[in-house]
């Protein structure tokens, strides 16, 4: 079984092959290792590899997976299979969280530089500046002051 995970800015592929008896061959980014996995009575995951045994705890929340290993916490994102890694590079043009647009600083057609402030978004009593991820020309602005936007909503499109 293949799955694609976003780990910060990285996209990582995991291939899981059942070897029977609750053992798996795990291939991550090309390297393979074996893990024995036991689901404990209280729902934890006991993983034994050649480096020892660890009990993990995994909680799903939407596409996020909160993974606790010992006292360490990691957050991974499950990508829909086939999703291209490049999509995330647009980041910064989407609303990072739900909020209200308080200011629009550019107009369609304007040439902007990398890092230039485009929009201000207020949420949780803090102002967040949306900046251009790269130089380019504003193709579309999908937000106006006072407008409430959802997380992930595309606010500005850039061309060039």
């Amino acid at each position, binding site marked *: *079984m293949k*799955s694609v*995970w976003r*780990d*910060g800015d*990285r996209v*990582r592929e*995991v291939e*899981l092959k*059942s070897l029977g008896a609750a053992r*798996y061959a*795990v291939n*991550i980014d090309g*390297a393979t*290792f074996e*893990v024995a*996995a036991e*689901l*404990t009575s*209280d*729902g*934890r*995951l006991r*993983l034994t*590899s050649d*480096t*020892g*045994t*660890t*009990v*993990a*705890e*995994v*909680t*799903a*929340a*939407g596409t*996020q*997976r*909160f*993974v*606790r*290993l*010992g*006292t*360490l*916490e*990691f957050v*991974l994102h499950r990508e829909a299979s086939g999703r291209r890694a490049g999509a995330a590079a647009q980041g910064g043009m989407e609303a*990072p*969280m739900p909020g209200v647009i308080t*200011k629009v600083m550019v107009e369609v057609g304007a040439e902007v530089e990398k890092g230039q402030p485009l929009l*201000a978004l207020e*949420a*949780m*009593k*803090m*102002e*967040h500046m949306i900046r251009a991820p790269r130089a380019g020309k504003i193709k579309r602005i999908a937000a106006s002051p006072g407008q409430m936007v959802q*997380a992930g909503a595309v606010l500005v499109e850039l061309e060039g």
Partner: protein
Amino acid sequence: MFRKVLIANRGEIARRIAATLRELGVRSVAVYSEADRGSLHTRICDEAVFIGPAEARESYLNIRAVVEAAQQSGADAVHPGFGFLAENAAFAEAVEKAGLTFIGPTPAQITAMGDKREARKIAERAGVPIVPGAEGADADALARAANAMGYPVIIKAALGGGGKGMQTARNEAELREGIEAAQRVAASAFGDPSVYIEKLLEHARHIEVQVLGDGHGRALHLYERDCTLQRRHQKVVEEAPSASLTSDQRTVVTHAAVRLAEAVRYRGAGTIETLLTREGQVYFLEMNTRLQVEHPVTELITGIDLVRAQLEIAATGKLPCEQHQLQRHGHAIEVRLYAEDAAKGFLPQVGTVSRVRWPYGPFVRVDHGIESGDSVSIHYDPMLAKIIAHGPDRETAIERLLAALDDTRVHGVVTNLPFLKALLRAPEVRKGSYDTEWIEREFLQPFAALMQAPAPELALAAAAIAEALGGSNATVAAPGAAPAAAPDPFAALGRWRQGGLGA
């Protein structure tokens, strides 16, 4: 004492206040907005009154709705907590006009100290040195003043507080952009766009003094707190006492604080915030006329319940004890756990906190406002909890706090837990050698780099296997039986697990 008190707040501070009310045998009334239906603070109060839509302006900031709820519930007093209407003089006045007691200072005191420009003048008259600064609505005039006193400067909302809207400017362009942004936030958060600027004292420490005034001209101090560890002017770690004050400096700053509180015949709990420069000079910053987020560290070292003291002053005008009866014991340190992505510019996070385990330890206190299944909404401050440890000395208190953070699990929403752990493991923090700008200047970049390290393969394997087993919902974690002498599976994560950042 009062018979019934309405708590004009939500989350962990509402729960905190309710605990003391229960102890005093006073009935507690919660208020809640549409977004907080059934949330923890409504579950633990004796009563709960609905006050309006999710938007704070329509509910927790709605003076009329809150005062009506107090009257409707038959409360005889109102505790504002912090944030929301806690430093709103019109609210205090409305509460008193409704015939109820406002648990806090007089409306005039709130007004005077709420205008930070006015507060600076009061401090100056009381003989407390103030930071050089300038005020006014004219950006050009402010720019000239900034040029005169020299950059960097800080832009602050005149009626602000809690670091909201604060902006640092290192040159005139940043100043002008910052003034505009600060004015917008100030108008939105405090209903008044006025801002002022202060010279940024670099390499300074944030020292604040907790005071209690009886409203008749007597005040006492409960020692200082050190809140130097800040990011974007927001406190993240607070402790008491300060490790960087000499005994003489402590005497100077606490006496100045009492002098100021007595000069204004201050009533209730308040905090005088100061900056301690590298040269050992103390400057007045502002006075907060309310309970402080970080009040638990003072409670732990003094044994004084500050909420109880507030209630008793409001009910009887009596201070909890004489200054000479106060003693302090050991060291206490607190972290603020936020739903925010520290590695991405502290971006606030929303969602459902599906699984929580709060830590346990014999000298650990947890003031939290959520339980498993509760949600964090866009509408309010994303602070989930404060985790506080007490110990005989600073080193032990930090060790205890770190153990508590390792014992903390919050799944479902990204939190600043990794940030807090890395921070407390940083050698500079252990040694106490930092200032208010240190996090941004020296800590954030290596922390972000650390967070960009790939997750260990075992984490990916766990996520994939959990999915293959049909449930990504494994419950509480604890490493299982390791074969004798097996290598520690975390050894490869050395920097994380052992010394942490910078080790």
